[in-house]
């Protein structure tokens, strides 16, 4: 079975292309000559400006040096090269595993040990202090760090686990981890996120559900993620929430993209995805219909608009609003008489087939 990455690569290969016609060829070819001339002029101008700036800077430097040490000549001033000390070598990892995964203590007094290593799983325990792990990606092997009653399960990532009494802090630099605690749903953390969990020992009373405080992004955020535009960050967080089985959190984030970044590229897709989640997972077809309509309004002249209209028909049909379903279906058939979803739209709205 193909992975999603393989499927995506095939889609990009097979479906992403730039169409050319004769008029376009003629226009672009005609522009090659003028473009070369403009480049030659721009290069010459840039060289001239650079030389002038260099001359000015050199002259200013000479004047500054002459003012500071009147006895020295400009040409004779030379600075000794600055010798940077070599960076201290990184400490060797405290734990090494056969698959290349490693663990380091990051705080004084850290107590951590490997509990076992097989082809299917690696288990580590952190009882006190903090540790950082680099885990070799593997789809067949589980890498789990336990601390108190918490268990951090990873598949190929760089993350830290810090234990301080009843408090456990997990931060992810790269990849994803799932944090499991008794009596609470597992929580997924992705690159740039960190969370604090309360893991109190039981004394006969029912365990208190932890209230993780998730920060996005934290100081562990990798530079590329932290530099992402806000809409992209929200979309990435929505993807993570969906993957973790939290569609309600995902639609909240997607609706924020539509509300706060309506002019950006991601907004129509966010509205469409939100509509799908409301329809397929949250059982709120009327809200789904609104989201699909929003996706259409945000990108009216794209191919997404056709899909969004078809989905709107489906949503109104699911809401048992026959009138609206038929109205949208007729709009779809008017706009896209040969549309790929014409037959489905007719069926959903209860319209007769053409044959």
């Amino acid at each position, binding site marked *: 079975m193909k*992975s*999603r*990455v*393989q*499927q*995506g*690569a095939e*889609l*990009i*290969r*097979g*479906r*992403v*292309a*730039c*169409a*050319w016609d004769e008029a*376009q*060829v*003629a*226009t*672009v*070819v005609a*522009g*090659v000559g003028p*473009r*070369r001339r403009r*480049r030659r002029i721009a290069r010459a101008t840039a060289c001239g400006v650079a030389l002038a700036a260099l001359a000015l800077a050199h002259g200013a430097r000479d004047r500054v040096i002459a003012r500071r040490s009147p006895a020295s000549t400009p040409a004779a001033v030379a600075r000794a090269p600055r010798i940077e000390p070599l960076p201290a070598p990184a400490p060797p990892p405290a734990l090494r595993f056969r698959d290349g995964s490693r663990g380091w203590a990051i705080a004084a007094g850290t107590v951590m040990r490997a509990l076992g290593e097989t082809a299917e799983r690696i288990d580590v325990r952190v009882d006190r202090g903090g540790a950082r792990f680099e885990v070799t*990606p593997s789809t067949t092997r589980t890498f789990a760090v336990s601390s108190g009653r918490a268990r951090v399960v990873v*598949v*190929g*990532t760089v993350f830290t686990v810090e234990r301080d009494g009843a408090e456990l802090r997990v931060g992810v630099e*790269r*990849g*994803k981890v799932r944090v499991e605690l008794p009596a609470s749903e597992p929580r997924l953390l992705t690159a740039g996120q960190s969370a604090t969990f309360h893991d109190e020992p039981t004394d006969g009373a029912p365990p208190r559900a932890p209230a993780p405080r998730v920060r996005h992004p934290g100081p562990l955020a990798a530079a*590329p*993620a932290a*530099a*992402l*535009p806000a809409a*992209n960050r929200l*979309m*990435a967080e929505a*993807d993570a929430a969906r*993957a973790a089985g939290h569609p309600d959190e995902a639609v909240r984030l997607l609706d924020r993209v539509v509300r706060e970044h309506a002019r*950006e*590229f*991601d907004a129509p*897709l966010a509205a*469409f*995805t939100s509509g*799908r989640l409301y329809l397929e997972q949250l059982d709120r077809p009327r809200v789904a219909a609104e989201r699909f309509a929003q996706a259409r309004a945000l990108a009216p002249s794209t*191919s*997404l608009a*056709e*899909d969004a209209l078809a*989905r709107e028909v489906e949503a109104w049909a699911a809401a048992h609003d026959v009138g609206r379903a038929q109205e949208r279906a007729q709009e779809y058939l008017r706009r896209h008489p040969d549309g*790929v979803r014409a037959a489905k739209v007719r069926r959903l709205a209860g319209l007769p087939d053409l044959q």
Partner: protein
Amino acid sequence: MSRNVRSLVLIARIVLLSSSRVQPAARAVAAGAATSPVEAAFRTYAPLVASLGMRMGAVDADCDDFVQDVFVRAVRGAGRLREPAAFKGWLITIAVNLARTRLRVRKLRQRLGLAVPGVALEVADPSLSPDERVLVAQMNRVLDRLPVNQRIAWTLRHVEGMALDEVAFHCECSLATAKRWIAAAQATLEEALS
């Protein structure tokens, strides 16, 4: 013979002596339908260059500027080519270098907080399902976050289907470096899309 004329003559030889794919262009030149060797080479290779630029994420559907830039550089440097048969590969290398520059400029603008319009992997085929479109958009988001060299190397390998040594040739790096870039990009994509 001036440098410009040498370049044009070389391009004409390339177009006329290449494989059967360029026969239509050669016939057009012979029949006088194409007005110049540049136009003939353009007709042959422009779609390839444009699609390559789009798939690397360096251009959107309006790819005229990119293709024009590539051909301006190609025309300027064609006189240095010794082997006409190497023209296509050389053109691809120019396209890869130009895409790399564009992607780096875009990343710099993002880091400086300047608004950068998203370059969508514009999907030409309307029969794609919404799920497929969402997958392409997700891939685009992850690819946008990759270091530029990783993105380009991965695209050439897994989207364009080039062999590793071809990827290394067009990225102008060693085979080991190309393999490392591709593996790093693949790992990031798998983590993000799993």
